[in-house]
C-alpha cells in the first residue's frame, strides 16, 4: 500500500500532497516538513530509499523518492510494495505529467494542483496502484479533459477570455517569478530497469 504521496520543492513548499490515511491538517503539515527535512539533506547520488518512516504508520514504512530539478516526489509505502517498482512508478508519474503539461515545470504544479490530482487518480487509487501504463493513463486523463471542455461550452468561453485579460493586466504573471521556471527535466529512464 502507498500511504502518502508528497510533492514539494527544494524549499519544502508543498506542491501536492495526497494522504491515503486520515490525518489532521496539522499532522499532515508536520509530516511534509519532516519528510522534507529528511530528504533534502541527502546528496544527489545516494540511494533513494529512506527507512524507518516513523512519520506515517511505523517501521514497516519506507520513503521512496526522486528528485527532479526543483521538485521532490516522495512516496511513503509499506513493505508490500517493491522499492524499485515504486521508483519506476514515480518515473511514470513524472513522465505522464510531462506529457500532460507539455514540458512540465514547477509552475504547472503550482497553478494546477487539481489537474495533478486528477492525473494521479488515474494511477493510484486509495493507496493502491491502479494503472502503470502511461498511454492508458494519458488516454483517460485526456478523455476527461475533453468532457470538461465540452461541458464548459459557451459558458466557459467568457470565463476563459476574462482569465486571459486578467493575465494581461496583472503584472504579477508567473513569468516574473523566477523560481520554478525551469522545466523538470525528465530523464529517459528505462522502465522497470
Amino acid at each position, binding site marked *: *500500500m502507498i500511504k502518502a504521496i508528497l510533492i514539494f520543492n527544494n524549499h519544502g513548499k*508543498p506542491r*501536492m*500532497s*495526497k494522504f*491515503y490515511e486520515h490525518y*489532521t*491538517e*496539522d499532522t*499532515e*503539515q508536520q509530516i511534509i516538513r519532516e519528510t522534507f527535512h529528511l530528504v533534502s539533506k541527502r*546528496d544527489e*547520488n*545516494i*540511494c*533513494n*530509499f*529512506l*527507512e524507518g518512516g516513523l512519520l506515517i504508520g511505523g517501521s514497516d514504512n519506507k520513503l521512496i523518492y526522486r528528485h527532479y530539478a526543483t521538485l521532490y516526489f516522495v512516496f511513503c509505502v509499506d513493505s*508490500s510494495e*517493491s*522499492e*524499485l*517498482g515504486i521508483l519506476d512508478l514515480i518515473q511514470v508519474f513524472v513522465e505522464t505529467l510531462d506529457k500532460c503539461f507539455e514540458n512540465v515545470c514547477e509552475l504547472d504544479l*503550482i*497553478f*494546477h*494542483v*487539481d489537474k495533478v*490530482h*486528477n492525473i494521479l*487518480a488515474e494511477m493510484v*487509487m*486509495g493507496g*493502491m*496502484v*491502479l*494503472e*502503470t501504463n502511461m498511454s*492508458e493513463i494519458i488516454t*483517460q486523463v485526456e*478523455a*476527461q479533459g475533453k*468532457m*470538461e471542455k465540452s*461541458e*464548459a461550452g*459557451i*459558458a466557459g468561453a*467568457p*470565463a476563459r477570455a*476574462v*482569465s486571459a485579460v*486578467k493575465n494581461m493586466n*496583472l503584472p*504579477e504573471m*508567473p513569468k516574473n*517569478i523566477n523560481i520554478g521556471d525551469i522545466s523538470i527535466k525528465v530523464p529517459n529512464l528505462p522502465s*522497470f*530497469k
Partner: protein
Amino acid sequence: MALKIVKGSIDRMFDKNLQDLVRGIRNHKEDEAKYISTCIDEIKQELKQDNIAVKANAVCKLTYLQMLGYDVSWAAFNIVEVMSSSKFTYKRIGYLAASQCFHEGTDVIMLTTNQIRKDLSSPHQYDTGVALTGLSCFVTPDLARDLANDIMTLMSHTKPYIRKKAVLIMYKVFLKYPESLRPAFPRLKEKLEDPDPGVQSAAVNVICELARRNPKNYLSLAPLFFKLMTSSTNNWVLIKIIKLFGALTPLEPRLGKKMIEPLTNLIHSTSAMSLLYECVNTVIAVLISLSSGMPNHSASIQLCVQKLRILIEDSDQNLKYLGLLAMSKILKTHPKSVQSHKDLILQCLDDKDESIRLRALDLLYGMVSKKNLMEIVKKLMLHVDKAEGTTYRDELLTKIIDICSQSNYQYITNFEWYISILVELTRLEGTRHGHLIASQMLDVAIRVKAIRGFAVAQMATLLDNAHLLTGNTQRNGICEVLYAAAWICGEFSEHLEDPMQTLEAMLRPKVATLPGHIQAVYVQNAAKLFATVLRKHEGETDSHAAQETSQLLIDRLPLFVQSANLEVQERASCILQLVKYIQKLQQKKVEVAEEVTALFAGELNPVAPKAQKKVPVPEGLDLDAWINKPPSESESEDEKPKAVFAKEEPKHSRSRHTEVDEKELARRREARKQEQANNPFYIKASPSSQKVYDAPGVEHIPVVQIDLSVPLKVPGMPMSDQYLKLEEERRQKEKAERKKKEKKKKREKRGKERKADSGPESEEDITPAHQVDIVTEEMPENALPSDDDDKDPNDPHKALDIDLDKPLADSEKLPVRTHRPEVLKSPAEDRVNENIPQETKKRSGKETKEKKKGKEKDRKRSKEEKKKKKHKEVEEELLESQPEEAVQSEETKEAATPPTSTSAEASDLDFWLCSAPVPPAAQEETAPSSAAAVDTSSAAAPESEPDEPKDAEPEDTKSSKHKKKKQKKEKEEKEKKKKKRHHHHHHHHHHHHSDAGGEDSVQNGTVEEEEPLPPMSNYSLLAENSYIKMMKEDADQVYDIQGNHQDESKVVVSVIFENKSDSFLKSMEFNVLDSLNSKLQRPEGAGAHDSLTVPFQLPPGISNEARFVFSVQSIVMPQKLKGTLTFIVKSDESSTHEKLDFKLHFTCTSYLITTPCYSDAYAKLLESGDLKGSSLRLEGINMPFHHLLARICFHHHFSVVERIDSCASMYSRSIQGHHVCLLVKTSDQTVSIDAKCDEPSLLGNVLDEIKQTFSKC
C-alpha cells in the same frame, strides 16, 4: 436561458479562481496568513451563492488551502453539494475535495450514500470513475455496507476502466465492512483471469494486500497465482505475485519447493532489476521456510548470493542498498554463504552513502564468527578513526559493541582483546555512548571472572589518565567510563598491583569536576581501596604506610564533603568520619583491616534485566488494590517536592541503574529470605530454591590464572592489534598441532575421506584463549516464561481473517436494498417520490432541501436537457430492474456452487502441490511453466555428472574433424551407457521437486511410515560433445490444441543446452528430419527442412533451455526423429562451425497426461467394456510398493485412483483421449500389471516402456 448562463458566468468572472488565489498568495509573502484569511472570507461568501459554478470554484480553492494546512471541514456540506452537481467538471472538483478532507468523523458523509450510489450507476463511465476514486479515500463502515453490493455489480461492468476501479476499491470495502469479503470473494477471484490486464492487475493487487495480512486463507489460490506467474508478462503483476508467494511459503513448505525452480528461471531470464530483486527475495523466503527440512538448496542460495553480489557491485546506489538489504535476510539462515562476501561488505563501509554504510554494518553484525571477529572489528576501528560526523561514528561504536557482545559474547575468544578495544574506544572524541562502553566494561568484568585481573589493571591506567578523558571541556559522554573504571578498581581491588597509586588517582582534586554520580562512585570505591590497602599492610610491623593512607583520605575527602551533589556529600562525610575513627584505632595499634574489609564483603552476581518482571505474583496478592485508602486529589500536590529528587535519576547512566538494581535486588532477596525463614507459616517452594541463591558460589567456577604475557602498551601500535597478531599466532599453532594429529590419523586410515586441510576452519575448531566462564544472569525462582503477545488489537486486518474456502451460507449476502425499494431507483426519480422511510429524519429533511434546489436548477436547464433526462429516466428504469435480478441470480449461483468447489479446492491444492508432472487443475496453461520448472534441477544436474566425459574430451577439443567422425560412433555407444548411468546418478544425488509428489499422490495415511522416495528426474541426455551437452526431458509436456484435427496433436519438447567449453557458443540452429507422422513446428513461411534458431547464446559454463513444438499424428507408436544442432564456437582467436547429431525419442508415455480420476468414474469406465486388456509381469522388483507407484506416476504420467494394501488402480489419458487403466499388484518381488485401454497398440507400447523403466533399476 442561454443569456442567463452567460450572465451568471459574467458575475463569476470577477471571482478569484484557483490560479488567482495561488498568484495572490505568492504576491503576499509577508502577510500570507492575513491574505488567506480574507480569501477564506470571500470563499464563504461564494459558497452562500446558489450558482453551482461559483460553489465549485470556491471548493476548488478550498482544496488548495487544505494542502497548505488549513482546516476546511466547515465546508463539508458545500463539498457534498458540489459532488452532487450533474456536471462532470464540478462533480470531479467535489469528489477531489471530499477525498482530501473527508474522513470517518465527517458527519455529512452519511448524506452522500445516495449520491454516490447514483454516480456509481451513472451511464457515464467517468462519473462512476470519479465516484469510485473519491470513495476509495473516504469510505466508512456505513458507506461500505450500503454500497458493497453496488460496487460488486460494477466488478462485472462492461468497461474495463470501471471494472479495475471497482475491483481495487473492494479492498477498502473489505477493510471497513469485513462481512462483505466472503460473498464478494468468488467474483474477485474470477477477476484474476479477466481479459483486461488492468483489471487482472487490480485483482492481483487486492488479493495480495489481503493475503499479506492473513496468508493462510489464501493458500488455496496458490495454483491460480502460479499459473498467472508463469503466464503474465506484466512486471508489476509479477512482482506482486512473487511477493505474495513470499508470504505464502512459510505456511506451506511444499509450495516453496515448487516455487524455487520457476523463480530461479525468472532470475536467470529477466532483465528487469525490480523483478530480479523480488525473485531473489522470495527465493530467500522460501529457503528460510525450508531451511529446517531441506538442506540441499545450496545451489539456489549460491545463485541468490551471486545475483545480490552483482547488485551490490552495481554503481547504482539503489541496487547496492537493496542488495545489502536482501543479503541480510539470507544471513539469518545461511550465514556461511554470506560470509564469503565479507570483502564486498567491508568495501561498502567506505561508501559515501550513509544508508549503505549502515546497511553494511548491519550485515557485519551477523557475519562475525569466532574466526573473523577480531579482523572485522579491526577494520571497523579503522573506520571509527576515519569517520566524519559524530552520528555515523557513534553508530559504528554501538555496532562494534553490539557485534562483540552479541549472544552472550559468543564470538569473543579473547577477552583481554575486548577490554583493550573498549579502552581504545574511550579515546573517541565527543561520543555520546560513554555509558554504553562503561556498561560493557562492567558487564565483562563482573561476568568473566578470569578477566578481572587484566580489567582492573587497564581500568587503573584509565583512572590514572583520567585527565585525558575529561581534558577538554565537557566531553560529557565519555567520562562515563570513569564510573565503570572506578567501580571495577574498587570492587576487584584485590587484583590491583598498586592500590595506593589508584587511590591517589581517585582522590585528585580534579575529580570534583566530574558529574555527581561519578564522584559518588569514586568516593565509595576509594573506601573499598582503602580497605584493601589496610589489609595489605596488615601484619607489617611498620604501620606507617597504612596510616599514611588514612591521612590521604582525611586530607582529600573534605573536598567531596563540600560537594553540591547530595549523594557525594553524604557518602564522603560518612566515609570521612569512618576513616577518622580508623585512624584513631590505628594510632592505638589496633588491627582494623578485617573489620574494614567486612564492610565490602560479598560477591555480586549479575541479575537478568527481566528478573524483576518475572517474579511470580504470590497467590492472593492483588497488585492493583489499594494498600491504604486512596489519597484525595488535593494530596497529590504535597507529593511534588519529592519529584525534585526523583528527577535527577534519569541523568544517571544506564550502568548505574543496573548496579543499583543488582544491589537492591540482592539486598531485598536476602531480606525476603530472612523473613521467610523466620516465618513459620511460609512453605518453602522446594529445596532447590534455596540452592539457587547459595549455589552460584564462586568457588566452583574455574578461575584460570592469566599469564599477562602481553605488555600493557605497545609503542606505535594500538593494543588490540597486538592481540590480533597474537591470536593469529596462537591459532596457527593450534592448527599446526591439529594437523599433526590429523596426519597421524591419516596414516592410520589412509585412502579414506580426504580432508581439505587448507579449507576454512570450522567454528568449533577455534578454542578460546582462556577458559572463560561467563556467568549467566540470575533469574528468580519459578520465573514465568515470557510470552509477550504484542499483536495490535486494533489492526483492521484482524477482522479480515476469514476462511474463504468455506461454502457460503444463505445468510451471507451483501445487504441488498430490498427493504427500501426507492433507493434502488435512480435518485433523479426519488426527487419526485417524496416517500423516504429512512432511519434519519434529519437526512430526509436535508434531502428535500436539496431537491428543491434541484428543481430550481432543473428549471434553468434548457429544453434539450429535459429531453435527455426523459430518455435517461427510461433508461434508468430499465437499469433498475436489471441489477436486482442480476444480484439475485448471482447469489443463488454463489450459494449453489461453492460446496462442491471448495472441498475440491482444498484437495486440489494438495494435489497441485504434490502431483508430480502436471498440475491437473491448470494443466493446459501450466504445461510450459512446469516444463520450465524442471530447468534448475537439470542445471544442477551437470555437477553430479560423472567426470569421465571431461577426462576424455581434452584430446578431441582441438582435434580435426576427421578424427571426430571416427570417434562419433564410439561415442554414441558411450552415450547410451551414460544415459543409464545418468539416471542412476539422479536417483542418488538430487532432491527433486517431485520427490514428495509421488509419495503424496499415493493414499495418505500409509505413507508416513514408509521410507522416503528416492528423487527422480525427467531429464536424460540427448547428445553431447566437447562443446555442448543437450538434455531432453523424458516426459515431454504434452498438450493438445483444441479445435485442431482430432488426429493431430502437439508435443512440446524441452531441451537444455549446456555449454561445456571455455568458448562462447552462438548461432545455434536446431533441426529435425521430419517423418510422416511427426513434424517439427516451424514458423510460418519457413520451408519444411529449415532449421530453427535457438533463441539464445551460451557463454561458457552456462545452460539454458529451449522448447520445441512437434505435431504428431498418430500416437499409438513410439517415434524416433533424427536431428542436428549446428552452432558457432567463438573463442578469442577464432570461431568455428560445429555440429552435433542427436536422436529424439518420443515414447508413447510422452503422449499421456496425468489426469485424476475418481474411483466411481473409474469403475464405470471399466464396466463399459470398451477397453481391451493386456498384462505384464515384472520379476525381481525389490522396491517398496509406494516407490513403485510413484515411479509409474512420475515416469509414465499415471495417477493413483485407489490403493488397497499392495494393490492399486491407476489411470491416465492420452492427448487424443484414450483411457489407460492399470491394476498393479505386488507380492514377493513380483509385480503384475493388468492394463486396459481402448487402443491396444498404444497400451502395448506403454507397457513395454513401463517394463523398460523397471528393468533399469
